């Protein structure tokens, strides 16, 4: 009798195991502040359907990666993709979730939003302090018919270390050789001149208050009424307007297939309509998950987000990844395993 009961219990246990890939009831993540609002919104929606709660702490990209390496969280989030060799070294895998764009904004008397055109090289010269007046011949040559005043240029940058600065300085370093050799690219750099505002709010406030100033903010802040955003020349020589379409065009024209570890910066992509300072934000997880249930829950959460999260992302001014990229990422999820078995089995196409 007793033996029988044990056998039944074992069988039941086996059955439960073979069903497998049951998600854990809570998972936690930490990292980038930029996508935090959309991750929280998705977590809300996902919890409603799956009863799995996702806790996300927006502590900053650097701190998020640190916490993942210390294994205090189940996933990390970073605005700065990790280099393939570092992924390899730490046994990590990363994938993009949403995109955003960085937009230069100006405050020049008589200049309307989208009226001023600049190139990356000129932008670099301005931020290096080599171009000091708005009616500099180089700017005038690019903007025929625009009445540019002789106001002195004031540069405004981010004072806090941020993914926005990382994208912006990386773009300048790629476009302007002197910027690359003198300043370089990082979350925080040794700015040659100008003043620093804290957060996008701080930069926007200083630009608004300072006649003749130029700064850079995330797209959501540039979109606000009346903010004079600047058009930038992209690789194809075009001047697309910043927005969801031109960010998506950048992601679509990027060469994802040849980017090991999804290490890709969407800067200066070749598409006709591609906005030159576009960036994706990334999720990092261990390739070898200690607890299968945790890994399953994390991937199912982002699977749900890919499937159902585009509307809420767009509402919060993020740009969803193009469908082709999502399909590619879902296929890559089989790399995430626990005891040799993939923790995620595709339920969607």
């Amino acid at each position, binding site marked *: 009798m007793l033996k029988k009961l044990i056998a039944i219990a074992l069988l039941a246990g086996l059955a439960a195991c073979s069903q497998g890939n049951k998600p854990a009831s809570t998972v936690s993540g930490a990292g980038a*502040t930029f996508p935090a609002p959309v991750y929280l919104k998705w977590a809300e929606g996902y919890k409603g359907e799956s009863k799995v709660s996702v806790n996300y702490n927006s*502590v*900053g*990209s*650097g*701190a998020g990666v*640190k916490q993942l390496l210390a294994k205090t969280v189940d996933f990390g989030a970073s605005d700065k993709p990790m280099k393939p060799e570092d992924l390899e070294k730490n046994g990590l895998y990363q994938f993009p979730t949403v995109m955003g764009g960085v937009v230069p904004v100006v405050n020049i008397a008589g200049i309307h939003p989208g009226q001023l055109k600049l190139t990356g090289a000129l932008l670099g010269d301005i931020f290096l302090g080599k171009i000091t007046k708005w009616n500099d011949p180089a700017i005038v040559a690019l903007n025929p018919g625009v009445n540019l005043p002789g106001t002195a240029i*004031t540069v405004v940058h981010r*004072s*806090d*270390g*941020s993914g926005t600065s990382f994208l912006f300085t990386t773009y300048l370093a790629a476009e302007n050789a002197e910027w690359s050799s003198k*300043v*370089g*690219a*990082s*979350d*925080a*750099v*040794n*700015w040659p001149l*100008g*003043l*620093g*505002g*804290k957060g996008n709010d*701080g930069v926007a*406030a*200083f630009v608004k*208050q*300072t006649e003749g*100033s130029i700064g850079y903010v995330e797209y959501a802040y540039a979109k606000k009424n009346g903010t004079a955003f600047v058009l930038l020349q992209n690789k194809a020589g075009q001047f697309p307007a910043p927005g969801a379409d031109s960010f998506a065009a950048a992601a679509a024209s990027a060469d994802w297939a040849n980017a090991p570890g999804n290490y890709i910066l969407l800067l200066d992509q070749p598409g006709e309509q591609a906005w030159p300072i576009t960036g994706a934000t990334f999720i990092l997880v261990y390739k070898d998950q200690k607890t299968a249930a945790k890994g399953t829950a994390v991937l199912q959460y982002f699977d749900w987000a890919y499937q159902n999260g585009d509307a809420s992302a767009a509402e919060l001014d993020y740009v969803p990844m193009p469908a082709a990229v999502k399909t590619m990422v879902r296929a890559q999820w089989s790399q995430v395993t626990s005891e040799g078995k993939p923790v995620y089995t595709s339920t969607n196409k």
Partner: protein
Amino acid sequence: MSVTRPAVSTDQTPVRRDVVDPIFRYVAFFAATLLLAVLGGLIVALLIGGWPALAKFGPSFFFSTTWDPVREVFGAAGPIVGTVVSSFLALAMALPIALGIAIFLTQFCPRAIAQPIAVMTELLAGIPSIVYGMWGLFVFAPWFAKHIQTPLSALGGIFAGVPNGANIFTASVILAVMILPYMAAVFRELFRSIPPQVREAAFGMGATPFEAVTRVLVPYVQKGLVGAVMLGFGRALGETMAVTFIIGNSHAFPTSLFSSSSTLASTIANEFGEASGMHASALIALGLVLFLITFAVLAVARWLLSTQRY
């Protein structure tokens, strides 16, 4: 009569007292030493965290103005000078006003309005730092830029700078408003501690109110006043959020009253979230520097206050 008794009612059970008292003593001892242990741990943690940067850059960490996270070259002269200058300016602005408030409240003010003024001054201390920062950035800085800085900046020299209100001077004004309530409150207590006979004696000698205050009362609490000033200075040194919003956050050495600058605390607040490696170590070393400066200032303040007998 019996109303005053309950306060010592535990004395009625002498048996328990033997048990309770030693435990109580240990609990109190533990509470007192816990804070010391935390303080010690903090210093050790700052030293360990900041050591890589201090060891790599040596004395140049304190004298170099290069702060380059990309090349990992760090010198703290800009933030150190920004911290000391902004705090000193704040003190220079707050001191006369705080002194005026305290003298008025204790010497000349009718009782009926002394209390409301005192309460309102202290309410200023209850406003969160970030509110001052937001107000400074969105209200005070634009006003200052338009009406004061723009006309003055034409003069150049110490008034040179981008006229947008984000500079070391506006940061000092905000700081002054923030340290004012603390200084005014301590000043007020000091003047109150003066025995009434001293004041009466001064007036008895035929002193005018001005003479009584400047020649008798202020010298009487001189050391205490200096101590209170140092306490205000210590608070201004470590103030973070409000300053971060308005000082302009430039690591360069400030060259004029209206140039953007940074402080030790604002640099840490700005960059720590995304820092790693040598950058993080340099920021922790900044914390250590700030700790040492504040500690020195407060130690002097305590010493001066303790030599003053009330």
